[in-house]
């Protein structure tokens, strides 16, 4: 059993500025992680040319390049960064479809802000456990 690698830096991708800011507060203030923010899929791809986050927390529904398409583009570029999706669509079938794309997990929107960081951490540990 390999030790769980440290989780220190998270890239948040969401087109809604208030949600982005809220996610930042949840992850920084409650979780104590380092956070970078992107407003779109292409923005995230540009950020990843230099940035090296441990995990990406990304909204599914975004105009233009949506979450799953962004994930596919990442993988095309050989980037294996784990992705956790945020979505309002939480039916079992949809969650299964997102996981099949290679997502680490899915967190439902609206989320509980006090437990979000913990939930992300749990997914991270389950992935490396």
């Amino acid at each position, binding site marked *: 059993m390999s030790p769980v690698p440290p989780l220190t830096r998270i890239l948040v991708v969401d087109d*809604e500025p*208030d*949600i982005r800011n*809220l996610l930042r507060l*949840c992850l920084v*203030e*409650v979780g104590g992680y380092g956070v970078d923010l992107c407003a779109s899929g292409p923005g995230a791809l540009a950020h990843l040319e230099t940035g090296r986050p441990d995990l990406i927390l990304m909204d599914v529904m975004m105009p233009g390049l949506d979450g799953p398409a962004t994930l596919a583009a990442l993988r095309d570029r050989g980037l294996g960064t784990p992705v956790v999706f945020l979505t309002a669509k939480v039916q*079992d079938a949809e969650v299964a479809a997102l996981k099949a794309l290679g997502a680490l997990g899915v967190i439902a929107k*609206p989320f509980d802000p006090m437990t979000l960081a913990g939930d992300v951490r749990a997914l991270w540990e389950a992935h490396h456990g």
Partner: protein
Amino acid sequence: MPPPPPEDPARIEPPLDEAALRRAILDGAAHAIISTDPQGIIRTFNPAAERLLGYGAGEVVGRTTPAVFHDPEEVARRAQALTRELGRTVAPDFEAFVAKARLGLADQQEWTYLRRDGTRVPVSLSVSAIRSAEGALAGFMGIAEDLTRAKADRAEADRLLRDLEHLKAALDAATMISVTDAGGRILEANPLFCALSGYGAAELIGQSHRIVNSGHHPPAFFKALWDTVLAGRVWRGEIRNRAKGGRLYWVDATIAPLLDRQGWPTTFLALQFDITARKEAEAALRASEESLARAQAVAHLGNWDLDLATGRVGWSAEIYRIFGQAPGSFTPTYERFMAALPPEDQVRVGEAVRRSLEEDLPYRIEHRVLRPDGEERVVLEQGEVFREAGGRPLSMVGIVQDITERRAVDRLKREFVSTVSHELRTPLTAIKGSLGLLTGGVGGELPGLAKELAATAQKNADRLLILINDILDLEKMETGRMAFDLKDLPLHPLLLQATEDLRGYAQGFEVTCELDPTPADLLTARATVDEGRLLQVFGNLLSNALKFSPPGERVRVRLLRTGRRLRVEVENAGAEIPVSFRERIFHKFAQADGSDSRQRGGTGLGLSIAKALVERMGGHIGFESEPGRTVFYFELPEVAP
């Protein structure tokens, strides 16, 4: 061949013998001829008299008339009549026959002869005096003609005449009769013609029928009429006429030309029946049918009927139009109807019709119709079986309504609701998140009142989220976009788990929540369900029961079997459900009292979601309520062990 014999010299005619001539006349005469001497002694009685009366000449010659073949009463009546006529006494004897002849007056009289066989025969008897060249009275001669045949002919003629009079009276009472000359001028008009046309006979005679022309028919109509009757044929048709004063009336007219020997019409006989009432009834019926057809066109609704004995199908015009066909362009049949449906709809509709016939229940089903041009319409189809007293189905009647536009509007409405709900979620996520961080102390410790206010805001944000999720769930179910993960599962463990899960929630209402002991044979009884959805249904019913239970009461849950179905009941104490509310209890946002949602919590969608979920799993949901006790239940088909 022998030569003809030489002519016999004896055959040369002698001079005419007067006596022989008289004899021949008497013998050959068709009438009975009886002669007497001046005193009435019968002298001759010819063969025709013998045939008429049945007596031989030998039996009567030499006897005095009135002989055996006269009726004494008739002779007496004749004597009285002659006494009055001649002004002197005529005795009821031979004088009754010859009184006038003696005076040189013609005397032809009807008498009755009594035949030898007792039958009576009417005769016309002429009596004349026979006088010598010097004028001396030599006797009398009576010539009698048998009137039997003439009398019968007269009686027949009288009967025919009477029949004709009756016929004419009947015709006069029933029909308008008029006669015109060849030029169309009215010669006669019966009282009924006058009564209906409003004109007196004097106003009509000499006029043409144009006097009642209403202008309704084109000139060609009357030209065809005249062409027909002038050609010697009978014309028959319906004419709209105008009476004096403007009143319009309809007649069924038959116009017959009366032809002369050369075949030319001399007069025209017109028989006309008043059909105004029928025409008005027809017009009223037509108007009513037209208004029905217009109403059907406006409603996009057609009606049909099916005769189950003959298979004959009737469609109103609107059904043809809904099916994209010209009204009446073909004879509808059940097969033709089915052929216009997509195959999967044919199966569903066929099943609904079959079940309706078997179970004697009306059916109501939505299906698609493919028009010949490829356009697809959505229709609502309803039908019902009519049976004779014995229960044998006679016919089906129903309606088809085009609800394509309504369905499109429904879809837009659902899409709108769906879009709005999704859009609401984003700001709500931000609100809920911010409030969560605030109350979590992320923004620093909140003063007491601020904490309370933030908690209120958070609670209501939660409620709003539940509402939005409910709306989206319903929308997904209505559009069939909710995925169901159906498995054959035992219900008892699920109920046990759900009852346990809600125990804490129940404590908040000061109500206890218990699962009645499940019968041993039901512990493993299974139904085909989506576990999560079933728990959602159960949670809805249970939380409803908790909310409406008075504090201190128990909510009881039990699993039963009814026939081939498993039945889950949730019973609570408390007020009876108002009767006025029962019908819409499963409707969206239906709450008995508008204030309930605030008092009791909940979105008003729980029961409609539960109903939709149960029905999607092939089940049925319902309730029973009485004062002090309400039971909500759902039933699901049991999976055979």
